[in-house]
């Protein structure tokens, strides 16, 4: 046993583990393996990993899962999943969101489910975007016209559009008004196109109805079906007649096969106990071509009806004994589960397992994740970046800049230093190594560049120390901080061609904040330029966040975010969301600079 400890770190770059092995693991193993080490944990929660895993989960490792929501006796409902491939059942667990009525899964895409949940107390329902694998969820803002009811006269179709990398929910009201929610902008908007005759849109739970950013829905017009197609780019509707052999009482589902939308029609003949399954392909000109016509003689009087069409053309059907899967081509029936969705208080949905987060656009990736991401895309040897933490970065730019380039400085825990150049889209290692890589606090500095020299703070043996990197000579200089700056919160600022250091110190007993400002002269000596004891006696202050260019401080307070002008001793309230809770923060200015400007 003692020998195990001696095993040295692997010679292998983590690239093969992170980018090749992890995406091939089953989702459940990945959840467990978040515990293996910090690097895996942080990598497994990156949007980059979610994308890699999603690619496999929608191609080679495609597993559709039925989700059963069970009405809860407590304040939350429970759900269990059944794999449509092997029939494996995951034990029930609680839904993360509140509500004790069974959640209705209106549609799902890429492992995210759009859930409508009735709230008894408020007498209206909430729309929730939920990843049943990772338990992440997001309660969506209410549509402009208020309530979301669980009745089928409203449609909530979730889809993903690649061209703008966004998740959207299409909502069609009873009156024909159409709204689209965008996850990226987290808001609803009303479409100009209206549906003339909205009719009845049956709840079909389709999830293979998107092709070329065109969404297909079935609509029932009292006597006949019609397909409505919404082009998500032009936001216009087209109506398409269904194939002529499609009678009432049959079940229609969409499936995408080889770049074509197909409609599969499942018809039952109760007398003979046979099911006829027809498959029609919709061609570019809107005409139909019959591709499959199988009479599936599953002579079983216990069949109640088809539920879902799986991507491979198999049908999930429910019968009196529960749920089964029917392969119409082979005429085979497989029993999946004994709980029947029409008995008791179940709701059923269908989903795949991915790590796509409903909060992905909210999250500012941490720098470690960002650097892994950038390294992966720029196909540099990412093994040089392994085990990196204590990353510092600065984006350098300016009118006087000599090479018109954006750069990211990365300092690893071992003191190795890398510079990324946006122009060349590549990383390289500097010859200079940092002697003091002990701890670089994340300061989010953005006024720390002067004459192409980048300044940042290092905490060395509990003391503050400034490191200056000359981006032209690529050399580091260590600069001692002023004697009164051994502790406190330090930020840089450029004033009239000099680097200024502003120190923020709290005296908790008197509840006062002291702000000092020091100017660094050319010879590396310090002159105190401002010394204001700013007596903001306010116990609600939690800590300074950023120093703005005019010398004001942004502070986080118990009530949100505030701004303090130390010269005038004035305080302004900026926002009521407190940044210490769930948010990640950053500071920036608005420009039209493109991150892809050099890729022409």
């Amino acid at each position, binding site marked *: 046993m003692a020998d195990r400890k001696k095993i040295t770190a692997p010679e292998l770059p983590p690239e*093969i583990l992170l980018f090749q092995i992890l995406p091939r693991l089953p989702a459940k193993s990945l959840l467990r*393996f978040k515990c*293996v080490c910090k690097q895996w944990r942080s990598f497994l929660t990156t949007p980059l990993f979610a994308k890699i895993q999603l690619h496999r989960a929608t191609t080679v490792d495609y597993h559709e899962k039925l989700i059963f929501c069970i009405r809860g006796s407590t304040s939350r409902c429970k759900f269990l999943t059944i794999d449509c491939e092997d029939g494996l059942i995951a034990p029930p667990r609680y839904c993360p969101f509140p509500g004790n009525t069974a959640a209705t899964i209106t549609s799902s895409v890429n492992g995210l489910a759009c859930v409508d949940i009735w709230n008894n107390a408020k007498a209206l329902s909430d729309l929730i975007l939920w990843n049943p694998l990772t338990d992440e969820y997001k309660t969506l803002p209410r549509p402009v016209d208020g309530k979301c009811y669980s009745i089928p006269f409203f449609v909530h179709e979730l889809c993903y559009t690649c061209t703008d990398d966004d998740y959207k929910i299409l909502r069609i009201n009873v009156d024909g008004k159409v709204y689209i929610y965008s996850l990226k902008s987290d808001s609803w908007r009303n479409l100009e196109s209206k549906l003339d005759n909205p009719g009845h849109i049956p709840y079909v739970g389709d999830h293979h109805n998107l092709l070329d950013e065109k969404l297909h829905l079935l609509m029932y017009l009292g006597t006949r079906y019609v397909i409505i197609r919404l082009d998500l780019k032009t936001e216009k509707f087209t109506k398409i007649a269904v194939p002529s052999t499609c009678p009432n009482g049959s079940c229609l589902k969409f499936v995408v096969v080889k770049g074509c939308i197909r409609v599969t029609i499942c018809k039952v003949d109760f007398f003979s106990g046979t099911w006829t399954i027809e498959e029609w392909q919709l061609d570019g000109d809107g005409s139909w071509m019959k591709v499959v016509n199988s009479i599936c003689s599953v002579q079983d009087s216990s069949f109640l009806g088809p539920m879902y069409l799986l991507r491979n053309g198999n049908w999930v059907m429910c019968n009196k004994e529960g749920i089964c899967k029917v392969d119409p081509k082979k005429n085979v029936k497989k029993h999946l589960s004994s709980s029947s969705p029409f008995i008791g208080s179940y709701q059923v949905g269908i989903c795949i397992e991915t790590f796509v987060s409903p909060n992905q656009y909210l999250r500012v990736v941490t720098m470690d994740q960002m650097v892994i991401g950038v390294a992966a895309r720029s196909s540099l040897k990412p093994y040089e970046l392994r085990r990196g933490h204590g990353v510092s970065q600065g984006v350098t730019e300016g009118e006087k800049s000599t090479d018109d380039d954006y750069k990211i400085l990365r300092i690893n825990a071992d003191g190795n230093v890398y510079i990324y150049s946006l122009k060349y889209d590549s990383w390289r290692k500097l010859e200079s190594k940092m002697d003091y890589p002990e701890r670089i606090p994340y300061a989010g500095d953005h006024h720390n560049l002067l004459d192409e020299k980048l300044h940042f703070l290092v905490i060395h043996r509990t003391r503050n120390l400034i490191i200056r990197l000359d981006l032209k000579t690529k050399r580091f200089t260590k600069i001692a901080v002023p004697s009164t700056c051994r502790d406190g919160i330090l930020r840089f600022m450029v004033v009239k061609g000099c680097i200024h250091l502003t120190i923020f110190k709290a005296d908790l007993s008197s509840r006062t904040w002291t702000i000092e400002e020091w100017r660094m002269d050319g010879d590396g000596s310090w002159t105190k330029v401002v010394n204001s004891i700013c007596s903001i006696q306010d116990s609600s202050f939690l800590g300074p966040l950023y120093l703005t260019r005019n010398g004001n401080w942004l502070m986080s307070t118990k009530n949100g975010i505030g701004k303090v002008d130390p010269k005038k001793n004035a305080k302004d309230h900026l926002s009521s969301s407190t940044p210490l809770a769930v948010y990640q923060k950053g500071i920036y200015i608005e420009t039209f600079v493109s991150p892809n400007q050099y890729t022409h």
Partner: protein
Amino acid sequence: MSKKTLTLMSKDKQLFNIEEHLAVQSVTIRNMVKEDGASSVIPLPRVDSETLALVIEYLNRQQAPEEDEDYVKKFVDERGEIPTLLELAQAALDLDIKKLMDAACMKVADLIKDFTLEEVREALRIENDRTPEEEKAIRDEFQWAF
């Protein structure tokens, strides 16, 4: 037509000969051959000789295309040792031999998917940098997966 032979050199400076038409299954080698004819020795500074011997054995296989899938599977199955497979996967990635890389990675994933955390760390030589408290917090969050 005489068959041209290439020489590959491993990290530990061992030389391996392989016929060019077989070697160019590796996209990396194919590109090198295209660029400069690769008349001299091709150095592979990240691949050790044992792994390179395996890669060469794989490239030299004489399988009918329809049996190829099975052969690759069997090939990696017979080398069930995780460190060997990882080295092989890395070499296949560097040399851009997609089928071999896929099969080796899939095999590793299959082997480790039901491992306990301790077994994963041991097999992949990963140091546990989490305190028991941190580990428990994640465990509690995804209780159902354990």
